[in-house]
């Protein structure tokens, strides 16, 4: 049995149309006009137990809406949805015990309380036996290196610290499925890496299924083994992360700040982008050369003060996938 099964999911919102100007606002007060917005349009997929799947797409693609339908928050307009053998819209109460959820931009903790107190409260809400809860909390506190952090009121924590607490809160009851909605949004590079490693480790050790939405390709590459790409409410692509990387993320961008005004880099597959003095920006074609070789060449050519390796933005990747899909359609 699949952990998550979706067949022809459609979610339509009815939203009020805003008309411009004072006259429009006045008309809207007495004769409001509404229109339908199709957020998810016939999405189907299945996820096996223990799988780590990234659900990616640009802003407004429908990924968060899908996640909210799967976690029972929103009801589908049409289609069949099964999560952990339950129907989320109907069995939300039961489903709550089987899933964990982290919404990167929102907090499930009680912000005026220390995180440790929120954990105690969640243990009661999830009806955990005291001994089982104490052991689980100790295990997670150690894994997530919370220590004194858990004793501070949540509102005093940094975003990275809070996110670690949010993850612990969502894992306390050993969920079968973990939904992560933009878990690394707003975090710095180090905090992002920590969260990604922790999610991956916990999924492997607990055997829980992970469905992660993000528009950071790093989340997808470091945590997941499979990727679903959604665009304008429709599933555009479903394939292993490695295959996506080879097909659609063939380039990386390297930014260097150096003591020398200009670095002399001439390698096959490396293109120098317009840069300022002491700042070099390179685009690397991964099909021609590995990032490690380019970095080695940079370090050999001068004194490096700062260096970053970045993926192309998600919008660019989706654009490439969309372009590829349309070309394939035309050929067919």
């Amino acid at each position, binding site marked *: 049995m699949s952990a998550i099964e979706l067949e022809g999911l459609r979610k339509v*919102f009815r*939203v009020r149309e805003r008309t411009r100007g004072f006259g429009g606002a006045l008309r809207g007060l007495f004769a409001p006009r509404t229109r339908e917005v199709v957020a998810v349009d016939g999405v189907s997929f299945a996820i096996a137990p223990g799988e780590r799947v990234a659900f990616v797409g640009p*802003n*407004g693609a429908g*990924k*968060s*809406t899908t996640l*909210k339908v799967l*976690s*029972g*928050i*929103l*009801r589908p307009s049409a289609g069949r949805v099964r999560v952990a053998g339950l129907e989320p819209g109907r069995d*939300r*109460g*039961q489903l*709550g*015990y089987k*899933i964990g*959820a982290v*919404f990167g*931009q*929102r*907090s*499930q903790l*009680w912000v*005026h*309380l220390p995180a440790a*107190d929120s954990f*105690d*409260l*969640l243990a*009661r*809400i*999830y*009806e*955990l036996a005291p001994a089982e809860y104490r052991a689980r909390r100790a295990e997670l506190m150690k894994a997530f290196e919370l220590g004194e952090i858990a004793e501070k009121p949540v509102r005093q924590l940094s975003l990275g610290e809070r996110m670690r607490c949010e993850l612990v809160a969502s894992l306390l009851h050993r969920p079968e499925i973990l939904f992560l*909605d933009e878990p690394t949004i707003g975090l710095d590079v180090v905090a992002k890496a920590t969260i990604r490693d922790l999610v991956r480790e916990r999924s492997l050790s607990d055997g829980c299924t992970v469905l992660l939405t993000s528009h950071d390709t790093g989340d997808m590459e470091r945590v997941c083994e499979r990727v679903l790409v959604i665009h304008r409410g429709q599933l555009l692509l479903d394939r292993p992360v490695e295959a996506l990387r080879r097909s659609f993320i063939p380039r990386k961008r390297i930014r260097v700040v150096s003591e020398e005004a200009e670095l002399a880099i001439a390698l096959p597959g490396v293109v120098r982008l317009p840069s300022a003095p002491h700042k070099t920006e390179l685009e690397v074609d991964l099909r021609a050369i590995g990032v490690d070789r380019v970095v080695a060449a940079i370090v050999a050519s001068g004194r490096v003060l700062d260096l970053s390796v970045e993926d192309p933005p998600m919008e660019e990747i989706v654009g490439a996938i969309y372009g590829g899909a349309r070309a394939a359609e035309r050929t067919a």
Partner: protein
Amino acid sequence: MSAPAKYLALAGVGARRALGERAALVGYCVFLGSVLFIFARVWKLIGVASPLPGVGPRELVWYLALAEWAVLSAPMVYLAVEADVRSGDIACRLVRPVPYVGAQIAEALGEAAVRLLALGPSAFLFAWFFAGGLPADPRGLLLAPPLALLGSLLWVLSLVLIGLSAFWIVDTSPVYWIWQKLGFVLGGLLFPLELYPEWLQRVARFTPFPNLCWAAGRSAFGFAPVEACALFAQGVGWATLLGLALYALARRARARLVVNGG
């Protein structure tokens, strides 16, 4: 672990929040003292004539203290519900295996319990001091706590109901202001219903408002356990009706749920 244990734990969170906001508690006590001081002076100066035998300015000060006690103890939970709906934070709360409305009520009641305990002695001391002694039949004061507790529960239920209206109107302040003013007038917050014209008294008795303020306040007029039991039963009836309205509204609200920010 049973459902009551979950709600008890959530009530504990509300209680802790109320205890953590010490300045707010002090503020409510000061406000209560100020109101009682002003009305005690006014009633003594103008010499309010009460149609009830044995009820004079002193009993009216006690009435006000007990009615205000019930009202001030109820937290403004509609603001929390409105904020959850507006910000979309309600999404996080809906994932938990505990109903959102039930959780909000439990937290608010925990907060109300702390306020009742903190404001109760203050109301007693201020009323005793400004009224210049206990009411004519102080045994009636023994009936006030359960009626004030029920009054606070009714406030909390109605405020959660107002908060849920955010699903339709977003800004719930107008609904709150109307409800509050009706509560003050038809609930007899400042003056007991007995001082109202007959027709207004009849209108008020068809609403839940007298159970919000007047029921607790009139304990100051004497020891009437049978009447108090009838008022309590009436309050339980209104609480049941409000509970059913909450259930129905929460179901309709879920169908309208559009989470902000995706």
